[in-house]
C-alpha cells in the first residue's frame, strides 16, 4: 500500500476530496458574500442561514411532497431567492444610508430568528437526506474510491462559480453590476434602475447559498445549525482572500477547504481551527488579504 508521510493514500485522497467539497461550499458562499457586499455594503450574516434554508426546503420537498432532488435543486434556490428579496425590500433597504455595521446586526437577528424557528419545529438533531439514486455509488480509481456524489458537488459548485465569474466579467449585465458597485449615483443618473439591481443581486446571492444548501443536504445532516457553523469559517475565508476579486474568492475557498482536509489527516486536533490560524498569519503578513487591495 502506498503511503505519504505515513498516511495510506486512500485516506489521504478521501480527505482531500472531502476538503474540496467543503472548499467549494466556502467558494460559493464567500463569492455570494463578496458580490452582495460590493453592491449593498452589507455583510450578510444570514448567508449561512439561507444555506440552511435551501437544505431544509429540499428536505421538506422530499419529505412532505415527494418532490425529487433534481426539482428541488431548481425550486429551492428560487424560494430562497424570494425570501432574500423580501428581506432586502422589507428591512435591509432602509439601512443603506447608515453605518455598514447595522446591516450586519440586522442580518444577525435574522439568523437567530430563522435558526430558532427551525429548531423549535425540527429540533437540534440532523435530518437525513438520501443521495439521489442517479448519483449513488462510486468509481474505483485503483488508488482510491471516488464517491460520485462528492465529485458531482465539486463539479457543479465550480461550474456555478465559473458561471458567476463569466456573468460579472464578460457580459453587459455584469458590466452594469460592476459600474453600480463602483459608483451607484452615476449609474442611476444614466437612467438605470439601481435599486432593482441591488434587490436582484441580493436575491441571486442568497439563491446561490440556497443552491449549495441543497447540494450539501445529502452530505451534511440537514439541521438548523448547519449554516451557522459554516458562515463563521466563510467569514475567515473572506478576510483571508479579501473581497476584491471573484477568482480570488474561488481560489481561496477551494485552497482552504483542501488545507482543512489535509489537516484532518495530519493534525486532527487542529482541523477545526486551521482556517482561523491561516487568517491570523495573513493578517500579520498581508493585512489587506491575499487578493485585497492594500489600503
Amino acid at each position, binding site marked *: 500500500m502506498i503511503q505519504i508521510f505515513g498516511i495510506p493514500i486512500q485516506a489521504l485522497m478521501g480527505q482531500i476530496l472531502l476538503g474540496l467539497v467543503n472548499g467549494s461550499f466556502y467558494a460559493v458562499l464567500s463569492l455570494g458574500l463578496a458580490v452582495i457586499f460590493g453592491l449593498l455594503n452589507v455583510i450578510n450574516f444570514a448567508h449561512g442561514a439561507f444555506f440552511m434554508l435551501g437544505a431544509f426546503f429540499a428536505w421538506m420537498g422530499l419529505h412532505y411532497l415527494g418532490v425529487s432532488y433534481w426539482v428541488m435543486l431548481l425550486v429551492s434556490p428560487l424560494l430562497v431567492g424570494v425570501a432574500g428579496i423580501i428581506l432586502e425590500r422589507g428591512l435591509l433597504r432602509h439601512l443603506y444610508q447608515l453605518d455598514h455595521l447595522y446591516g450586519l446586526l440586522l442580518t444577525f*437577528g435574522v439568523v*437567530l430568528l430563522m435558526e430558532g424557528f427551525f*429548531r423549535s419545529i425540527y429540533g437540534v438533531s440532523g435530518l437525513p437526506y438520501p443521495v439521489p439514486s442517479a448519483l449513488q455509488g462510486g468509481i474505483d480509481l485503483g488508488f482510491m474510491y471516488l464517491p460520485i456524489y462528492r465529485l458531482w458537488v465539486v463539479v457543479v459548485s465550480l461550474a456555478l462559480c465559473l458561471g458567476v465569474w463569466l456573468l460579472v466579467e464578460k457580459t453587459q449585465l455584469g458590466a452594469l453590476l460592476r459600474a453600480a458597485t463602483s459608483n451607484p449615483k452615476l449609474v442611476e443618473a444614466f437612467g438605470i434602475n439601481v435599486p432593482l439591481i441591488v434587490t436582484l443581486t441580493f436575491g441571486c446571492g442568497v439563491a446561490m447559498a440556497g443552491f449549495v444548501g441543497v447540494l450539501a443536504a445529502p452530505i451534511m445532516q440537514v439541521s438548523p445549525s448547519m449554516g451557522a457553523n459554516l458562515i463563521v469559517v466563510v467569514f475567515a475565508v473572506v478576510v483571508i482572500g479579501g473581497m476584491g476579486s471573484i477568482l480570488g474568492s474561488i481560489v481561496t475557498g477551494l485552497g482552504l477547504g483542501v488545507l482543512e482536509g489535509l489537516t484532518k489527516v495530519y493534525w486532527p486536533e487542529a482541523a477545526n481551527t486551521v482556517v482561523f490560524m491561516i487568517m491570523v498569519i495573513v493578517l500579520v503578513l498581508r493585512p489587506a488579504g491575499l487578493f485585497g487591495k492594500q489600503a
Partner: protein
Amino acid sequence: MNKKFAISLAVFAALCALPFVGAYPVFIMKILCYALFACAFNLLLGYAGLLSFGHAAFLGGAGYATGHALAVWGMSTVQGLVFGVMVAAAMGVVFGALAIRRSGIYFAMITLALAQMAYFFFMQAPFTGGEDGLQAIPRGSILGIDLNNDLALYYFVLMVCALSFAFCSRVVNSPFGYALRAIKENEPRAISLGYDVERFKLIVFVLSAALAGLAGSLKSLVFVSVTLADVVWHMSGLVVLMTLIGGVGTLLGPVIGALIVVVLENKVGEFGQMLASATGWNGFELLGQSVPMVIGLIFIVCVRLFRQGVVGELAHWLRTGKSP
C-alpha cells in the same frame, strides 16, 4: 455632577436593599454580571466605534481561567479573579493587535473568527471539561467572609460591579475617552492631530477585554460553573443586543439593556402564555418557547426602529420634549 453622584448613590443603596424586599440574589447577580459585560463591550463599540463580535471569548476565557485556578490550583478567590482578568487581558492584547489591522466590517468578522478559534480551543482543551464544562467551582472566602452564602457573595459582586462601573465612567470622561470619541467620529482627523490611533484602539480593546473577563470570572463564582455556552458566538451576539437595546454610547444603556435581556430570557415563556391567552393566538405561546427567536426579533426591531436604545431615546425625549 453632584446630582449625578447623588443619583448613583441612591441606586447603589437601592441595590443594597434589594435582597431584603424579596429579590433573589443569584438572579440580580446574573444581571449585574451581564451589565458589567455589556458596559465593557460598550466601551469599545460606544466610545471607540469598534464592533467586536467575539467578546464571548473574554467572558468565557476568564471564567474558565478563574474556575480552573480555584478548583484545581486551589488559589484564593481574589487570586482567581485577578488571574481570570489577566487571562482575558492577554487574550485582548492578541485579539486586539490582530483585529485593529482592519477596520469596520472586517474588524467584526476577524473578532468573530478569533472567538470561534477560542471556542474550539476550549471545547478540545482537557481542563475545560468539554461539553460538560467546569462544575462545582469553590467560591472560597474573602477577608474571612464565606462567599458560599449567597447574600455575602451578592454584596461582593455588587461592590466589584459598582467599582467597575465607576471605572468605566472615569475612563469615558477622561482625556483618553475624548480621544476615543475623536477617533470614532473622524479617524483621519485624529491621526492628523497627532494621535497614535492604533495605540488608543489597542488600549481600549484590552480594557474592554479585561472588564469582560472580570464579568466572566464573577459569573463563574455566581453559578459555580462555566460551560461552552459562555464562549459560543451566541453570547457575543447577546452582548451586542444588550448594548443596542439599552443605548450604544451611553453609560447607563448597557446596564438597562442587560436588565431587559436577562428578565426577558427568564420570563419569555410566561410573556408568551400571557399574550397567547390575551389575544387568543397560539403563535405567541410558541414564540415564548423559543428564546433565540424572540432575541432575533428584538434584534431586528432594534436595528430597524430603535437604534438609540432605551436610554438614548429617553435622553433625546428629555432634551427636546418630544419623541424623535
